[in-house]
């Protein structure tokens, strides 16, 4: 029978497995980077600068994706760059989620003065221009992995807080919440047992989106040279370097860009796929 729901489920499954597969692949490569990378990502060799990828005329087959203007292996740098990208995605995404979702849940469910305080805080926070804010923050803290993570958390917790607050508010108006209260559940208990499972799908989607955003933010900050020290390979840093020589060596720009794009896309698609999995109505 042409049941629409079966169709939906199949496409959701493919999306979930493709995106999860790519992220697993990137994660494994990042963990085992010293073994996975064919060359030393930092080794410079000015005599073999701007070598093209292996299928182009004049390539050195040992540099599979070519070299940059300093003769460093592009593939190895992408692989080592994945470590920083994923570390930022996981740590910054999780922290942002924890802080933002907790505040949003409290504001949306408890309402009253708690909501007033948290909502005003969000309003004030969002009045700061985010890019300027993060640049300022890193200028003060000094570049480094820790600063980037902190910058992302500090800027983006409001995204979680706002969405989860609205969601918790909607759920809080439902009769089952009143029923739990009548049955004698504490406020905190109601929040955790009744509300949280219903906002969890949204939290998961936001979390994966946030991980994607974290990867992009890290790349942007690397691009403006405010990320990790310039020696460490980062995708954003590679894109910034590649941009200057794009007419002579397009591969230095294109390969990190494609990797970045696929990873961010995979994060957002993973979120969508997981949401369908989590939703009891679609399950």
């Amino acid at each position, binding site marked *: 029978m042409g049941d629409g729901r079966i169709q939906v489920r199949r496409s959701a499954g493919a999306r979930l497995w493709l995106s999860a597969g790519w992220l697993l692949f990137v994660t494994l490569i990042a963990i085992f980077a010293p073994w996975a990378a064919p060359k030393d990502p930092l080794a410079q060799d000015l005599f073999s600068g701007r070598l093209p990828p292996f299928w182009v005329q004049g390539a050195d087959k040992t540099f599979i994706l070519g070299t940059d203007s300093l003769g460093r292996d592009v593939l190895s740098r992408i692989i080592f760059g994945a470590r920083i990208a994923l570390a930022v995605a996981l740590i910054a995404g999780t922290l942002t989620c924890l802080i933002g979702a907790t505040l949003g849940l409290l504001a949306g469910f408890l309402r009253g003065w708690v909501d007033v305080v948290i909502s005003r805080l969000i309003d004030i926070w969002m009045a700061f221009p985010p890019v300027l804010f993060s640049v300022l923050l890193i200028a003060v803290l000094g570049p480094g992995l820790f600063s980037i993570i902190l910058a992302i958390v500090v800027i983006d917790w409001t995204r979680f807080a706002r969405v989860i607050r609205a969601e918790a508010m909607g759920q809080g108006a439902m*009769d089952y919440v009143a029923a739990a*209260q*009548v049955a004698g559940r504490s406020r905190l208990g109601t929040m955790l047992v009744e509300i949280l499972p219903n906002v969890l799908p949204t939290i998961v989607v936001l979390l994966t989106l946030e991980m994607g955003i974290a990867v992009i933010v890290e790349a942007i900050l690397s691009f403006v040279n405010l990320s990790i020290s310039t020696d460490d390979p980062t995708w954003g840093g590679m894109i910034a370097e590649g941009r200057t020589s794009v007419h002579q060596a397009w591969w230095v720009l294109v390969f990190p860009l494609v990797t970045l794009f696929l990873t961010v896309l995979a994060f957002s698609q993973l979120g969508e796929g997981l949401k369908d999995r989590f939703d009891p109505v679609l399950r």
Partner: protein
Amino acid sequence: MSFLSIRNLSVQLKGGQRLLRSVSLDVQPGEVRGLVGESGAGKSMIGKAILGTLPQAVEVVSGEIWLDGVDLLTLPPRPRRRRIGALAALIPQDPLTALNPSRRVGPQITGRLIDILGWKRPEAEARARELLAEVQIDVVERVLRCYPHELSGGMRQRILIASAFAAEPKLIIADEPTTALDVTVQKQILRLIAGMQAHHNTALLFVTHDLGVVSKVCQTLTVLYGGLVVEEATVRGFFNAPQHAYSRALLAATPKYTDPDASLLPVPDAVVQALEAQVAAADRAWHG
């Protein structure tokens, strides 16, 4: 002393609009009292005030709510919630939103017994099975493992009824429990509530705007208008000889299946004006 005794309860929107104007009401152990009135008369508000689920924009101004000898309004929030949870339960209006959509039915019934009343899991599960059988669900095991969206509205209302009776409360507040159901299911659910009430000898406060339902289920009733108690009577007395002009008008406005062609009479203007004057007088007395 009555099991539930509300004394001069006044409730208002924060900012001034009054919703309940010095309402007094008694429910004896095992009594089934109907609470009727038009939309906005404050009948649901009374139920919410008793159960402590008033919306945030609404506050109790004055009055007492005695439940089994303790004035709930003098208790701090936590003991109050516990006391209500132990003595009273709610059968909600809309079965579609009254079950948590992301949890299976079984844990929703047993969870409250285990977490709040400290039952052991096997006891709670046995109790849930027993109750589902009592509300005439014959595929108990399957229903316990279902998510709410997998069940029909009538089925969900049965589960909510079972859940309300689970901890043997002494008072159940049924807030228009059949309004969201279609007519054929309504009748079954009413019969079920009445049967369960008689079996467990629970006091029942039945909020409805349907006088026909009241005549079938209730023993006594309270008529509200604009947050004022207009009439209190036994069901027999009310339907034979309503005292208040408004009550007579309400009865006259109810369609009769014995005479389907008879035109429906609206509540006469004079009666409404008299009631509004009463409401205004109550407010003057309050502010005076």
